[in-house]
């Protein structure tokens, strides 16, 4: 799925990343706990979250995730947007709740970057 398709599926506003709408994403991780993102998300995944502070971009940078979708109508802080522009990390905002956003993306072919936490322990 491309970011363009993602934006369509989630009726999402593109905050950062207008120039990388053709980038392909294959899997995702969803959490409001950045500690868990750091422990379980895999490189190249999309991050789906309700956390809007700059740390969400830092976490994405450290793990080399591809982009961030903010759910539940949350808007990223100004500092978050600035940092994302600097780091060239695409940001999207959707009004869907996390469950709906994940469900819609999953049913369109996006899968989890891991399926169970047991998978993370094996890596």
């Amino acid at each position, binding site marked *: 799925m491309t970011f363009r398709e993602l934006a369509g599926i989630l009726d999402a506003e593109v905050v950062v990343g207008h120039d990388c709408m053709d980038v392909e994403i294959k899997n995702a991780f969803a959490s*409001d*706990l*950045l*500690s*868990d*993102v*750091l*422990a379980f998300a895999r*490189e190249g995944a999309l991050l789906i*979250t309700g*956390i809007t*502070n*700059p*740390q*969400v971009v*830092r*976490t994405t*940078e*450290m*793990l*080399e995730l591809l982009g961030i979708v903010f759910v539940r109508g949350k808007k990223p802080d100004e*500092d978050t947007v600035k940092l994302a522009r600097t780091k060239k990390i695409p940001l999207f905002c959707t009004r869907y709740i996390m469950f709906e956003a994940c469900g819609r993306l999953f049913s369109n072919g996006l899968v989890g970057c891991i399926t169970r936490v047991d998978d993370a322990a094996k890596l």
Partner: protein
Amino acid sequence: MQQNYDEPLLKQDFTVQGGDFIHAGEVSSKIKSILKEIGMSHEVIRRASIATYEAEMNVVCYAQRGKFYLTITPDRLSIIVEDEGQGIENIALAMKEGYSTSSSAIKEMGFGAGMGLPNIKKNTDELLISSVLGEGTRVAMVIFTKP
């Protein structure tokens, strides 16, 4: 000629300010760029980035300030973090997944779930933590860079 494995190829220090959530992560970002520049393997960079960032967030969340000492030798990279802060009362307990003493403010930021130290452990080859309650904590992390 025999390579001296104790001779550092690179040594650099960084300072982290406690409570500065806006700039939290900058030191980890700098260290990551350095590792990329000198051509460390993808896997080493990934593990070092996660461990450093978790350690940096710990300083920002629980200490007044911290110093990061990065040393790279031919076979390993070592990151030592020394902070002036509240310290850890029970290190064994702090190493347990899910154990946390964090405030609700830290939790609201998406941290403080008791995953930090276990995640550092997972992403390093050697980890030594010592702490004096009310004074500070020293975290010494080593990642071997040779396969």
